[in-house]
């Protein structure tokens, strides 16, 4: 039986390795391994809880901001802090534009090359490309001259013989199905999206000082002052700047991203039946539209909280954070009993690397094989991410989600069952982007209106000084990161962090097997997939990329004890 290894699995955040057994041209079993580890949670121990968000934000620079929000919410939950409305609204706006920008980058720069053959674009007729583009959207950059220019640019680039990041890929693979004109259009939009993402994320600089790694979060609120009568605070000019950026953001999503997904999908409809995975979905929900009293009682959430089991869209189960546990049976850590899972507040963790000594060819997948733990909900593996959120919202009757999901399915002539797939994940991400992009301006107007009422508060203040804190406290923070449900669990003692644990979207999705041998979402979704050429396993990339992996996020705590330290000098 042949074993395929993809390492590094590129066009993701972080270091992911996939091993898959192939028999008769089909994957029989797959293993997902995170191969990098830093120990952020260990580093947090003993520090000031108000500093934690600065550290945790660095868990990931692709999903920048989300670990900051989650962290301040965890501390606020522990200390019983309710942030002022302005802070809640600013956080929603920051996270919303993060979704929109990050999802577009994922589609064009990380995922598209699984479906788009750049080399084939060189055969495209610019006039026909223009016709195609104009038939799906009224986006202005669509003339034959424009596409001719793009084609010439690509041709000149190829002619240099230095293909840079586009070299040595799977170009010409039989699984690429798009006509040359669609490929050329996608290449043009790849380049346009590069410009666009840089522009729209300036909203983070306005409200957060910079992007990546914003710097205005605070336990208890935000540090960006609001004051219509000051040039140092958020005023009418900054609101106008935000709205200008958000108009551009929404326009690109509705006139380029959505039409592209709907135009490409019909060529790959077979992928609506591939890559399903677990059939269980979890969403913590996000974007509180009312004041949050606690993490268990977050108020009215724009994207709802819930669990869907066994593809059953008729029931949305409530979420209880106490039902979250993690196994280390197949992870390079040890518990007293490796077969029993633990809740994050219990949080006792020891590293136990038992993998092969590098350089290695294969991992020992029968034993421990990843730096990721295996989180479970009610002891079940679940999938998180845009598909989970859209399914929970759809099943809960969310008006805008239902409208866009139904519209997309109608356009593709498919039923809701098509969503449980690789293509479904990619489509759900796009639909979510449309739904969130619609909210950017209304939410900014809401903030402006609240400021207009004379409410200039951005911070709670009462609990800023640790002398106002109880001797001991515990709490949890929740976020829906672009990649899925994110939770931080904290215990505070005498004003310091006693314990900190993160369970991150990709930990759920890229999880290794648990004590009962149940695979995680990646592993389950690859089983049964046909691989045309084991030397060029494009099919594996398609499904794994449909989850939008973020491995730096996913890797967990470690606490090395008594291991020998060996230092190196390379040259």
């Amino acid at each position, binding site marked *: 039986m042949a074993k395929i*290894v993809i390492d*590094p*699995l*590129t*066009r993701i955040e972080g270091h992911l390795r996939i091993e898959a057994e192939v028999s008769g041209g089909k994957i029989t079993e797959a293993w997902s391994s995170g191969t*990098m*580890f*830093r*120990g952020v949670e260990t*580093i947090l121990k003993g520090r*000031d809880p*108000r*500093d934690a968000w*600065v550290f945790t934000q*660095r868990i990931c*620079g*692709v999903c920048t901001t989300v670990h900051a929000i989650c962290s301040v919410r965890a501390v606020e939950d522990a200390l019983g802090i309710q942030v002022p409305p302005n802070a809640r609204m600013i956080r929603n706006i920051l996270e919303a534009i993060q979704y929109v920008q990050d999802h577009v980058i994922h589609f064009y720069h990380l995922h598209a*090359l699984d479906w788009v053959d*750049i080399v084939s674009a060189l055969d495209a007729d610019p006039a026909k490309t223009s016709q195609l583009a104009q038939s799906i959207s009224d986006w202005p950059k669509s003339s034959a001259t424009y596409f001719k220019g793009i084609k010439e640019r690509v041709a000149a680039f190829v002619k*240099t*013989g230095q293909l*840079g*990041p586009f070299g*040595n*890929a*799977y170009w010409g693979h039989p699984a690429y199905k798009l006509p040359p004109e669609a490929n050329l259009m996608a290449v043009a939009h790849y380049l346009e999206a*590069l*410009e666009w993402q*840089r522009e729209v*994320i*300036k909203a983070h*600089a*306005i409200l957060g*000082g*910079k*992007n990546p790694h914003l*710097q205005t979060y*605070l336990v208890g609120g935000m*540090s*960006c*002052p609001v004051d219509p009568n000051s*040039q140092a605070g958020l005023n009418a000019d900054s609101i106008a700047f935000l709205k200008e950026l958000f108009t551009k953001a929404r326009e690109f999503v509705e006139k380029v991203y959505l039409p592209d997904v709907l135009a490409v999908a019909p060529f790959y409809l077979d992928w609506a039946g591939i890559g399903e995975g677990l059939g269980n979905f979890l969403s913590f929900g996000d974007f509180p539209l009312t004041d949050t009293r606690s993490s268990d009682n977050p108020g009215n959430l724009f994207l709802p909280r819930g669990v869907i089991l066994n593809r059953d869209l008729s029931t949305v189960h409530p979420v209880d954070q106490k039902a979250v546990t993690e196994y280390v049976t197949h992870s390079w850590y040890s518990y007293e009993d490796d077969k029993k899972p633990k809740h994050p507040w219990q949080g006792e963790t020891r590293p136990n*690397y038992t*993998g092969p*000594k*590098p*350089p*290695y060819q294969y991992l020992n997948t029968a034993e421990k094989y990843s730096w990721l733990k295996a989180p479970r909900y009610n002891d079940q593996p679940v999938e998180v991410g845009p598909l989970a959120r859209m399914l929970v919202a759809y099943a809960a009757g969310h008006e805008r989600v239902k409208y866009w999901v139904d519209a997309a399915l109608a356009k593709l002539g498919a039923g809701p069952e098509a969503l449980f797939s690789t293509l479904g994940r990619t489509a759900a991400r796009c639909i979510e982007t449309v739904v969130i992009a619609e909210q950017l301006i209304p939410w900014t107007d809401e903030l402006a209106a609240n400021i207009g009422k004379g409410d*200039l*508060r951005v911070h709670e*203040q009462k609990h800023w000084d640790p002398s106002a804190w109880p001797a001991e406290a515990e709490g949890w923070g929740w976020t829906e990161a672009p990649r899925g449900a994110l939770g931080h669990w904290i215990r505070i003692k005498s004003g310091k962090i006693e314990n900190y644990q993160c369970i991150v979207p990709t930990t759920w999705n890229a999880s290794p097997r648990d004590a009962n041998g149940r695979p995680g979402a990646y592993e389950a979704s690859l089983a049964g997939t046909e691989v045309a050429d084991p030397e060029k396993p494009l099919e594996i990339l398609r499904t794994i990329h449909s989850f939008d992996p973020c491995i*730096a996020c996913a890797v967990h705590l*470690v606490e*090395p004890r008594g291991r020998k*330290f*060996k*230092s*190196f000098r*390379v*040259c």
Partner: protein
Amino acid sequence: MAKRWNFTSGPEGVGEGGVLEALQRKGISRREFLKFCAIIGAALAVPVEGVGKIAEALASVKRPPVIWLEFQDCAGCTESFLRASRPTVAEIVLDLLSVDYHETIMAAAGKQAEEAKEATIKEGGHIVIVEGSIPTKEDGIYCCIGGRTAVEILKEATRGAAAVIAVGTCAAYGGLASAKPNPTGAVGVRDLVNNVPVINLPGCPVNVVNITATVVHYLTYKSLPELDAWGRPLFAYGKRIHDNCERRAHFDAGQFVESWGDEGHRKGWCLYLMGCKGPETYSNCPTVRWNEGTNWPVGAGHGCVGCTQPGFWDAMTPFYRRLPKVPGFSVESTADDVGLGLTAVAAVGVAAHAAGSVLRRKSEKIEESKE
């Protein structure tokens, strides 16, 4: 010694006309090109007559191959790189450099990705950009790519390289993963690489303006920019934030923010009492700002956290604690004169390979690379 990159004649098959011709083929006019050179010149603080030299160098140079390695990283520096505007990331990738390996953006995966990297290394003379720290504990098993440790990969990739650019504080000094208790034995590039010039561009993340300017400086002058004791280019890290801060006048006037959202906060007063680390931090943040000059952390009402300084995760925390004393006000001081003494106290782990020797080593390396 492996073949060094020759900046005036490059490999075959790239076209004879260099970057300018490549740009012109893509519809970029000579005027636009010169404008770009002028902007870069401004970033590098070269006199106007120097702009012609930049243009000349870029017009004749071929696209130097780059291998971008990610180790214990968060991809934040990669994301920052994607925000490049002058030139844009598309221009960097298509017209200026040949980014032959970069896990986050490259089309190839697995075996094919590794082969692309090996081919570039074999040719030699490439630039290695490193993002993220390198774990050294337990034989390096805390970061493996393609079944090999980060330590091994770095060793292989830097052999025969023209230069290494460590982007972000993790690659430069160990950064986040090396914060106490440094569970994985994380270190920066200079702790491991000592026979290739290493330029540090710290920041969390690095500001892309500084990557662009460093690369262009290298292409233009065929040498490294002058570095301070921490291996940072003086053109970007030569001045203290506090001395260039837009809120400095409020510090001098004794006008301070005292609680979040108070009147002083809304009016843009000094954040010193809220823990701002600007008085101990060297960076061009206040002048180049972020996201095409849109804003910077102090401009958005939060203190500087000192992210360009070695060991800042330990030396600058708790972030909201006021600095015990503010060093002298001289705007002429560089980190070597003032900041070194302050930061070295808290960053002893990084101090070993710094100070004094760096400038001398740099000039030796340039001589070596001319062989």
